[in-house]
């Protein structure tokens, strides 16, 4: 990191600006955190107060003890993990093949992936509904997993393609002379080298699936099968307005993702460039 920084001398003056910037980005979420720690009526007090009148920690216990919430959390985890595993298993061979070998149909395939990137599940939601209706998959985790995997595949292929292309070919050519098969070469030589790319693609996919909303809103009927993004809205409806629970559920949903992101912050920069090259 230090070699790419313009000036190597750290400057405390800029820290003040940085702190203000961080505050601007965090402010709404601080309000969310504080909102989870005050009563629901306090959340709707006029005039509003910034700090809770009474610090109400019990909301977290309420939410974590709420079976509906735990079911939504389970769905989000299951769908997020399953679609991520599928994306990685499917994207790695495709990205490796297109980055390392020439064959007829290579360019059309890459073009197809690029076009997929422009299709959003939201625009296609009526078509998705009809397909899963025919397949009898409405109201199943399978439908959510397949959709999230398919629509995040393009981004993963691009990122991994960029990383594979950045590895000098000599490394593999030497291994091939030693009689290593293509599969062994991918697994033993290439995958360890593109680990940052793999991590980036994994976390990107997981977060996209974790945050997906429209498809789940449309395809899932049972309250217990909803993911967090859809389920937690029922804390605030026309009938009951439990803002404290909504905010506590939001905090619980956001924190693990922020930690995941912070872990790959270093790779994030590299991952985005590698993906942006091709």
């Amino acid at each position, binding site marked *: 990191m230090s070699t790419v920084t313009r000036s190597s001398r750290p400057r405390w003056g800029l820290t003040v600006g940085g702190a203000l910037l*961080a505050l601007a980005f965090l402010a*709404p979420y601080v309000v969310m955190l504080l909102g989870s720690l005050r009563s629901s009526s306090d959340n709707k007090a006029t005039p509003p107060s910034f700090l809770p009148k009474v610090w109400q920690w019990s909301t977290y216990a309420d939410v974590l003890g709420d079976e509906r919430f735990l079911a939504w959390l389970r769905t989000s985890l299951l769908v997020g993990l399953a679609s991520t595993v599928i994306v990685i298993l499917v994207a790695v061979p495709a990205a490796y093949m297109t980055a390392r070998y020439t064959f007829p149909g290579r360019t059309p395939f890459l073009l197809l992936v690029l076009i997929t990137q422009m299709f959003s599940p939201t625009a296609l939601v009526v078509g998705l509904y009809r397909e899963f209706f025919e397949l009898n998959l409405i109201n199943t985790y399978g439908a959510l997993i397949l959709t999230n995997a398919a629509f995040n595949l393009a981004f993963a292929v691009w990122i991994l393609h960029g990383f594979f292309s950045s590895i000098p070919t000599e490394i593999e050519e030497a291994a091939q002379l030693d009689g290593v098969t293509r599969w062994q070469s991918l697994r033993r030589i290439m995958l360890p080298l593109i680990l940052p790319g793999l991590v980036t693609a994994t976390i990107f996919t997981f977060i996209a699936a974790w945050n997906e909303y429209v498809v789940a809103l449309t395809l899932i009927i049972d309250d217990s099968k909803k993911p967090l993004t859809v389920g937690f809205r029922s804390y605030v409806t026309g009938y009951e307005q439990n803002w404290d629970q909504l905010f506590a559920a939001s905090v619980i949903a956001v924190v693990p993702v922020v930690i995941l992101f912070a872990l790959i912050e270093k790779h994030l920069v590299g991952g985005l460039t590698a993906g942006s090259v091709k």
Partner: protein
Amino acid sequence: MSRTTTRTPRHTSSGYAVGRVRPLVALAWLAPALALIFGVVLFPAVMLFQASRGEYSITGLRKGDAGWANYTKVLEHPDLGTVLTNTVIWVVSVVALTIVISLGLAQFLVKNFPGRRFVRWAIIVPWAASLVITAQLFVLLYDFNYGLINHALKSVGLIETSIDFLGNDSWTMASMVLVGVFVSLPFTIFVFIAGINAIPDDVHEAAVVDGASPWQRWRQVTLPLLRPALLVATVLNVIYVFNSFPIVYTLNDRNPGYLHDTTITFMYKLAFKSQEKDVGMSAAAGVINVLLILLVVAVYLRIVNWREETR
């Protein structure tokens, strides 16, 4: 690793290849990806097109063929003009503001200062939080009676009476754009940080030796070299913002009609939330949406001469 990649962005198609493979071998490696793309992206697109040519009852049962009638109904919809105008305002203002602000902030965030890592972590949060959560949060922040934004503006004396950010027609779009920009900034800033880091230091040193002012250096050295990053950021943001559903849908939830809808929420409401409840019409709107985004991206890539960048 990222540096190696970006320093040599112009691979020729065979320059980095280990060799040729037979089509069948390649197919075997690509088969799972092709299955997913055809099965869950392109097949639903076909289903969408089929649905757009059908006549549906209000409960979603297919009653017969409609020909192009659904398309006529969408194109003759009295609110279509408003919805299209909203979409253009929404996409152009969110993407343009995001790009400009991100360029400035990325330039700041590549500087070396104590605590920079924490600032970068903080910036990630709106990206990591689900759009539904952020949108829901802003519904409360913007609220007329108990929203903190009105409260803060009043206490510093900027306004006398509360502003109805989400209910007043002249404020709704601006309020949505603010949230749209807020959630688009993190990704875009990181693309630009990556882009700036990929510019070799010696280029800047040469410009300094030549006596270029900081502004000249940025305008004539940094900006041209950021072209690939700008291209990626713009294309992906246009796609994301055009397809963005939760913000427009949630912030606009209480307003009846289509006055502040974009083509995406318009399409959704046609099928699931309007008096029409018309699956066929919604599907036709969906097909038009897909064609619109393909057209916009194709035109943009044409204008910026995409082939030259990614050859």
